[in-house]
């Protein structure tokens, strides 16, 4: 099997000098695929993703992007390398307009980003409608679209989403999943953490079930959904 596009390989580590939260945890995403990290509360799902993004210290293991070892890079440098990250909370500039949020997303770009903005408006038509409105005035689902749009402005090679559907209604959640699939269809690999395990695994090419900071089950979305043990423990039968 060839090397995945982005891989956090057997990562062990925690925040600052605190205790290890991840134990030999591996998360990877292939080109053109959606990989989903699920698991019970406190399993280290978000921590795993943050480790891939360089927000905590790894004592063991490495992170490789397109074959290049980026373990030592800061999160800012990883953005420059082509990683887009949408944090779970405070992921937009609330006092700025939707358009300004997108402009700030493109801050590191020195070329003309008008085309990218048009693409994002095509992907999220509601944002075009509200482009001159302060992002903080939008609804929860719309804010998440702004957040994803902001991350897409750098034209990332891989997009990482930390619980994009946290705190939105089921209807909005379905719509957000549709949008995420559309983003994936544009060719950007997506790695995301999700609370709503069932829906997330349904759209996932690859699923990681984490328990206590370690890989418990790994497989395609369908495999995991069909696995009786996964169903029993995490999907409610």
């Amino acid at each position, binding site marked *: 099997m060839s090397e995945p596009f982005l891989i956090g390989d057997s990562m062990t580590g925690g925040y600052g000098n605190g205790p290890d939260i991840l134990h030999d945890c591996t998360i990877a995403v292939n080109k053109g695929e959606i990989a989903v990290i699920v698991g019970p509360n406190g399993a280290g799902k978000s921590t795993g993703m943050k480790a891939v993004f360089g927000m905590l210290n790894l004592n063991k293991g490495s992170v490789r992007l397109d074959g290049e070892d980026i373990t030592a890079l800061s*999160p800012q440098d990883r953005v420059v390398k082509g990683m887009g990250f949408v944090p779970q909370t405070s992921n937009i500039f*609330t006092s700025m307009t939707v358009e300004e949020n997108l402009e700030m997303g493109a*801050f590191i770009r020195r070329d003309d980003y008008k085309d990218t903005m048009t693409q994002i408006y095509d992907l999220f038509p509601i944002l075009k409608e509200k482009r001159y409105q302060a992002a903080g005035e939008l609804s929860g689902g719309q804010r998440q679209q702004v957040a994803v749009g902001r991350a897409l402005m750098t034209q990332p090679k891989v997009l990482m989403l930390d619980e994009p559907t946290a705190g939105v209604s089921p209807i909005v959640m379905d719509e957000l999943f549709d949008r995420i699939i559309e983003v994936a269809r544009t060719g950007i690999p997506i790695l995301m953490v999700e609370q709503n395990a069932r829906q997330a695994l349904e759209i996932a090419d690859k699923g990681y079930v984490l328990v206590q900071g370690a890989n418990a089950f790994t497989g395609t979305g369908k495999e995991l959904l069909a696995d009786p043990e996964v169903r029993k423990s995490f999907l409610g039968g």
Partner: protein
Amino acid sequence: MIDFLNAFVALSNFVLIPAISYGAQLALGALGVTLIYGILRFSNFAHGDTMAFGAMCTILVTWLFQSWGISFGPLPTALLAMPFGILATMGLVLFTDRYVYKFYREQKAKPVILVIVSLGVMFILNGLVRFIIGPNDQRFSDGERFIISVREFKALTGLKEGLAFKTTQGITIVTAVIVVIALFWFLNRTRTGKSMRAYSDNEDLALLSGINPERVVMVTWLIVAALATIAGTLYGLDKSFKPFIFLQLLLPVFAAAIVGGLGSPLGAIAGGFTIAFSEVMITYAWKKVATYVVPESWAPDTLVQLLSTDYKFAVSFVILIIVLLFRPTGLFAGKSV
């Protein structure tokens, strides 16, 4: 009818014009305070003395120009000297940032620690200014004194009440308008300005977006230095320059920033005028205006002055307390760290 006109002229002369120019000076000062609060996240108590330092540099250059015989026609020479004052103040704030504030920023010091640090900077600056220029009143205004003097106005309109519009008041208002427009254009239209707002809004996300915090901080200090110098020089031109005055001015400036909502530039302007108008209106003796407006038999015997001018700083305090009690984030909902 003519009585109402006279009343309005008296009101303009003693309340409106002074309050507008004072409000403009406060607004410029409060803008500096609010920018530092929004970006560096602490209340900069050294701001009053930064204004004093800027004004002092401007005065020194003004004297130099005057000794060379350079003048600005009917306008004060200080306007020509102001760019040099701004440059000197920029140097000063970058110096204090590099050698004082940066250390605490890297330690991720709490805002309250930075406030105390800024108090230290304030005392040193205050001493420095008095050491260089002396503690006394300094006069440096020249050029035409009035745009319209009382006598000209009376001859022009034939009204009993006169109206004086000092050149310094005119310059204050015009300069403030230009500076505010330029500042808002910068914050809302330019890449750097937007990155400053983004940093103020959400520091972590700004870092994720590749915004360089040290650059944002530097640009903020440069703008604040310019604002402080302009505010200090205008205040000095309009009233007089005395180092200690700027220590007292810190109160209404902070009151203006807090009333408007710390971190909100628009709020700083609204706050500046709120404080200025309250101060002037509460300490003004309304007898003259009242006499024109009410029937003769009702004419007041007293001065109709709510508060002696000695207590004008109390007005800022009272407004500050009322705002903090009922709307703690200020009129324009600023931040609260």
